[in-house]
């Protein structure tokens, strides 16, 4: 089954110049100013090149001052001008703007989220709430959120282009980045540091929602899975799924792969590889290696009937 278009596009993009937070606004402004000055600089150089081209095979310019004058111009344009411009850029970007992308100071945020990078999914937990979820980070809108990030294996990098800079996830270190969204909506992020075979499929969805809805969502995620019926849990326990995955409220407790307690509430499977619906879930369970070659989830050999039962169960875990 083809994964087709990005499952959660829904109009969401990851455009650096489409800022939805004060930090990203300052980055975008920085870009536009640097871009404008660069255009002027490039145009000036292009003019000098063009002048040489137009004057090709003709006598030298009647240049007042000759070589000494030209050397003065090299000093003026090649040393003095860049010193002035670069100093201005340095003070503006690296003394002032840098504060907006700095790690949030202790206690300055209303919410703290723990993100752990894995090959190839994001594990997400909320301080003060039970359990973890995966690949989908909900935040309350217009609220400062401190993301504390680290990795369980190799280096990854967390980046939600419309909300802030990126931050690397490094073994045994915890880095911190501020997330803030000025408007409710869906924002896309992804792993930005090469992390092996499926670096291309490690997408993070950030959903900013009004505070009450967020809190309702968080309560839902913290709760255990509802009572199982229909035999899907038995297949889950019997056919190896439980070796890696946790479903809170059942005997499946392993935390190697993503927590599946509320897997049906998520929009995508396999970190943005495919949409989360019955057909894709079925295809994924039948042969993960076909949809995401190299993924840590092995192929399982279960009957069509067991597969259907399992899909029924998992798609019921809202």
């Amino acid at each position, binding site marked *: 089954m083809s994964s087709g*278009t*990005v499952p959660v*596009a829904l109009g969401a*993009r990851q*455009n*650096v110049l489409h800022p939805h937070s004060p930090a990203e606004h300052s*980055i975008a402004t920085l*870009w536009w100013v*640097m871009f404008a000055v*660069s255009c002027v600089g*490039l145009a000036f*150089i292009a003019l*000098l*090149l063009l*002048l*040489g*081209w137009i004057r*090709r095979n003709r006598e*030298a*310019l009647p*240049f007042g001052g*000759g070589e000494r004058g*030209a*050397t003065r*111009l090299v*000093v003026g344009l*090649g*040393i003095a001008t*860049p010193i002035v411009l*670069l100093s201005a*850029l*340095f003070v503006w*970007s*690296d*003394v002032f*703007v*840098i504060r*907006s*992308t700095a790690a949030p100071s202790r206690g300055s945020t209303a919410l703290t989220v723990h993100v752990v990078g894995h090959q190839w999914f994001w594990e997400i937990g909320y301080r003060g709430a039970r359990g973890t979820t995966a690949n989908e980070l909900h935040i309350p809108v217009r609220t400062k959120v401190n993301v504390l990030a680290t990795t369980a*294996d190799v*280096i990854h*990098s967390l*980046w939600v282009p419309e909300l*802030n*800079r*990126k931050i690397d996830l*490094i073994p*045994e270190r915890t880095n*911190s980045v501020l997330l803030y969204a000025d408007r409710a909506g869906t924002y896309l992020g*992804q792993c*930005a*540091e*090469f992390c*092996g*075979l*499926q*670096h*291309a499929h490690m997408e993070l969805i950030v959903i900013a929602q009004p505070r009450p809805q967020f809190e309702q969502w968080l309560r839902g995620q913290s709760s255990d899975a509802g009572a199982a019926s229909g035999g899907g849990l038995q297949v889950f326990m019997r056919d190896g799924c439980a070796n890696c995955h946790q479903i809170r409220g059942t005997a499946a407790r392993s935390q190697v792969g993503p927590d599946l307690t509320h897997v049906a509430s998520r929009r995508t499977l396999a970190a943005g590889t495919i949409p989360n619906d019955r057909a894709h879930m079925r295809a994924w369970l039948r042969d993960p290696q076909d949809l995401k*070659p*190299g993924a840590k989830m092995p192929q399982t050999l279960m009957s069509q009937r067991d597969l259907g039962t399992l899909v029924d169960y998992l798609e019921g875990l809202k």
Partner: protein
Amino acid sequence: MTAVAPPVGRSRTERLDLIWEERPGLLGWLTTVDHKRIGLLYFFTTLAFFGAGGIEALLIRTQLAGPNATVLSPEAFNEVMTMHGITMIFLFIIPMTTGAFGNYLLPLMIGARDMAFPRLNALSFWLFLGGGLFLYGGLLLGKGPNCGWFCYTPLNTRTYDPGLNADFYALGLIFNSVASTATAINLIVTSFKLRAPGMSFNRMPLFVFAMLAVSFSLVFALPALTTDLVFLELQRKLGFHFFDVAHGGDSLLWQHLFWLFGHPEVYIIILPAMGIATSIIPTFAKRKMIAFPLVALAELLVAFIGFGVWGHHMFATGLSVSTLVFFAAASMMVVIPSTIQIYAWLFTVNLGRPEFRAPLLFIGGFIALFVIGGLSGIMFAAIPFDQATTDTYFVVAHFHFIIFGAAVFPILGGMFYWFPKVTGRMYNERLAQASFWVTFAGTMLTFFPMHIVGLLGMTRRIYTYHSGFGWDSYNLAETIGAYVLTLGLLMIFANLLWSRFRGVLAGPDPFYGGTLEWTTTSPPPPYNFAVIPTVTSPYPNWDRDDSDGLPLDHGHETQATTVRDGYFDEVLHMPSESGWPIVLGAVAVVFFVMLLTTHYIVAGIFAAVAALTVIAWNVHEPPQE
């Protein structure tokens, strides 16, 4: 052959021919110590690797032409992507500029008859070839390096890269850096000691200043890389813990050491290009470079400041803000030596009577592309912008404007410029100019849209992407651009190949260049100069000196002069051709293969054989007269 008593009663050039002639045929190429022949060996070998790296680039672009493509599997993509980077940097640009251009041209430009250490020079080439074949052996076995050219830990450890892939990477690059270090030392000693009498330090051609800066950078930067790679192999093969956090190692240590080498590396790539530009511009502007001392100083400063900027590759790793600010300031400072040179080039062109033949066209293209890549480079010194766009296609765009635009364009221009010197024949001018425009258009179309997809959030090193991000049409344009670029390059090489056999005879000095290589025949004789010239200007062909010069026609000899002032010091007896360098190169291949396959005892034996080879190399030298 050496040790032949100089026959009396013949003309000077006949005697020199007899003294300097090497064996004919294939054996002559395998045992050569002539810097020009070694330069040509480097040229054709690096060109072959350029072809391989180019095919890898086309595979990458074909895979990324549209969303969800399956031209390459994820594993194949990662190996091809990694080998593309390693090939272009370590097996093409550095050996092309130092090994081919540096080797061939530097002794000619300073009026010497060979490099300071001719056999070491031959050894450098054979080690380079061995290292390149070693790396490609990995790819052909399906075990090519697959972790990206900077291969971050812990992805490069056995836990996450259990095959031989990262071992091919680490051992192959150690192998390669031995060859580069030997070349660099040779270039340094040659330009310090073998200059023609009268060529004081301030009369050295700017190309030689650039090669000197590159060589010092290599000598000081490569040990950081080698250290990193040795740590990695000790960890992978013998269970050391340099990067293993669980046992007190540090995962950022790899990045610090890598970029302590890796950023000077960028200037190692760009400096020879600057040297080529400062050779071509005065010739076609028909005047000396303006601000000559400033440009020479700028070339040395680029290399020096380049050692203080490595941290800007790590702005997203969570280093403290004060650390970031230091590296940002250094990164901005390194801009200034470049702007000095850019304006010096442009004013030299405009104060002269410019003739836009193919070499100058390529330099014009180089300046435009270098300025674009330089401006986007400055943006990465603005820390918040770097933190947003690092590891995206915006970076890929930036460094391809630098590495392809600013480093390869002068190499291509230089191929045309020195083609008549090397072959004695002219290239086809009209085809050369047409190929410039095709190559330039292809370059812009391939790399410019990468800025835009980078800002639209496309990260580097992804083997595929979904539709719906607004990336599809830009990626398609880039792929079309890559094929246009390939066409331009094929036009260039077809031109050179055809002209090699059919071009009109060029004569010694078709462009009326200013430096010493234009004072000898095309192609130069094995001894380069019948009489070692006396130099009184940085442009000795334009300011000819009438004094007699040194004949040195009684043996296999060249001159040594004092380092600063270029006063005549002594006559050096140069070693003869030898088979030992290629033997030692072959022994080195076996040694590295044994390390790779963990046959440490056999590796030790071959290390001993290598030591014996070095002894034999010296014992075998017949006594010099």
